[in-house]
């Protein structure tokens, strides 16, 4: 039984990492959102599994929130928004797929190496879960960095947040997990509404901060 609990948790967490890697090379907004919705479904499954294994019924609520908000409401809203903003044909001019994927794999390896090394005496389920969660967080950051479009940055942020939920549910008995997932849903709702209301299309930042400052200041 112990073995099975471990394997299933492993499988689900691993699939979330895999979906995070898939997010990296999606160059169409629609497919990006679909992959994200899939990740949210797997996250909901993983959280429910943890709820069952840990015998922690409140985690079912977190799973339900993940499923309802991130797998259904947000993706549907984003699909509509893309149509209304007229950016559905846009192809992302991110970095090339090759280097991005290599960087992503590097990040996964990094988080495995870091977490497995520092947590040698923690219990095995928690530590592997944590290693997966850190990979998802770092891959989410990478997705945000390599995208130009506000919508896909938000998708990157939400996948980062999936990693946080994964970590929080993996930490047995952690308080406030439900509250945190609600707080994040509110945050994400704010972001999505923000994009829509203010028609934010371009990404907020360039790598070259100095250039940005100059442009902004000379515009005055």
């Amino acid at each position, binding site marked *: 039984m112990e073995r099975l609990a471990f394997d299933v948790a492993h499988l689900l967490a691993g699939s979330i990492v895999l979906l995070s890697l898939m997010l990296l090379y999606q160059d169409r907004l629609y497919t990006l959102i679909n992959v994200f919705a899939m990740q949210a479904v797997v996250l909901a499954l993983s959280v429910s599994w943890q709820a069952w294994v840990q015998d922690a019924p409140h985690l079912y609520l977190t799973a339900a929130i993940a499923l309802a908000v991130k797998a259904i409401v947000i993706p549907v809203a984003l699909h509509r928004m893309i149509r209304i903003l007229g950016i559905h044909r846009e192809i992302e001019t991110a970095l090339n797929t090759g280097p991005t994927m290599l960087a992503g794999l590097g990040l996964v390896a990094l988080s495995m190496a*870091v*977490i497995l*090394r*520092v*947590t*040698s*005496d*923690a219990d095995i389920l*928690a530590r592997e879960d*944590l290693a997966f*969660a*850190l990979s998802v*967080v770092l891959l989410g*950051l990478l997705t*945000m960095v390599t995208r130009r479009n*506000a919508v896909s*940055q938000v998708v990157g*942020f939400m996948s*980062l*947040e999936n*990693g*946080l939920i994964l*970590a*929080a549910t993996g*930490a*047995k*008995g*952690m*308080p*406030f997990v439900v*509250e*945190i997932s609600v*707080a994040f849903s509110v*945050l994400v709702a*704010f*972001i999505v509404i*923000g994009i829509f209301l*203010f028609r*934010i299309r371009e990404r*907020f*930042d360039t790598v070259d*901060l*100095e250039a940005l*400052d*100059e442009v*902004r*200041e*000379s*515009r*005055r």
Partner: protein
Amino acid sequence: MTGAAAWIGSNGVALVLAIPFASAVLLLFLRGYRLSARLNALSSLLTLLASLSLLAARPAASDYLLVDDLNIVFIILNAFVGFTTSLFSASYIAHELEIGRLTGGHLRFYHAMYQILLFGMNLALLANNIGLMWVAIELATLTTVLMVGIYRTHEALEAAWKYFILGSVGIALALFGTILVYMAARPVVGEGPNGMVWTVLVEHAASLDPGLLNLAFVFLLLGYGTKVGLAPLHAWLPDAHSEGPTPISAVLSGLLLNVALHAVLRFKLLLAANPEAIAPGPLMAAMGLVSLIFAGFMLYPRRDIKRMFAYSSIEHMGIIAFAFGMGGALANFAGLLHMTMHSLTKSAIFFAVGHISQAKGTQRIDDIKGLTVSHPLLGWSLVVGVVAIAGMPPFGVFMSEFLLVSSTFARAPLLALLLVLGLLVAFGTLMVRLHALAFGEPVGRNERVKASYVPMIAHFALVLTAGIYLPAPLVAWFQHVAEMLH
């Protein structure tokens, strides 16, 4: 009367939180500008009084709230600057209403958000639970995001968006760090809420898993460091400061940065209590030094006056983080003093800059000249403020910087050289800019504004007094806290 005093004494913590919250709800429904501005100031004053009552009667720590020697400094400073800013805000916002940059609906929202921000910051400072602290900082961040975007111009929205995204990333990293701290605590203090109570964590710090703690601190430093405005995660700060209403720039610079720093200090204490964990100091000192030097060089090219002072805030947060990172009684003392002086001076500078940009109708440095001729009181206030923030004697900032530099020279001469380099670059730039801003022939529009000079002058008077004479009880207090911080 004594009954009332006793009641306030025993409920100080509740009042510090309840007053801003209740007024926020009230202000949301209140129409009429004069009334809400007054209520805003009154509520801030009451919060200040309630926070002062914490000095007299300190409640025992509960699972959620805590008052100790460290956070009380932050809370009182917070409440004081919150109060003076509410006075400044009354005259500033009146002008914005006159010229139609803000309307009635925005106004109710603005005042309610101001109080919510104070509530969030007080909660973050009082929190004894690292989860609650995280939630409170998120709340404070979200309210400032909304306030930065309140003018609804393209630039303001872009600044708010940038702040929002970078702030969210910071906050997400901080949460990951918080989870890691819980995981480190779980085997020792058991499952459940206890694993997040700060006092419990510190008590058991020596037996927590050092590897997890190290990793947690890296995430917490990056996450909350984003909020502090430490390089390389400072990118949101100049925009947020320059595009929002000036009272918000003052509160951001003077207070919110400190609140995030307080969170970092709490976790630094946790790590310092664990003998096997890495020393958190060098990481903080390195980030601080990089921010200081980077911001020092970034000051010169700025053409927007609020943006320039935003970079100056990054510089000073760098100095403070460096001081706390160096650690030791003297450097910590310098850090605390510098933090207090910076909050007072920088918010007063923003008060002056707010009125100046209203009088000139622009924030461009090139279009502002000869202020001491056209607006003597505002111009000279700016001169005093910039001289103070640049670290000239006899102001308090000079004293804290002097203490820091001399203590660093004794321990790490090479770092002290870098520190002095950063300070000098910033000093030179500020003086060059100040010369152009304050002296010479006035150019452009020169409208009169109804400015509120009292908060500004009060801040400068405090900074000047602190530079000449620090009262012995205050010194003793800061020394005590400095020792507590290791």
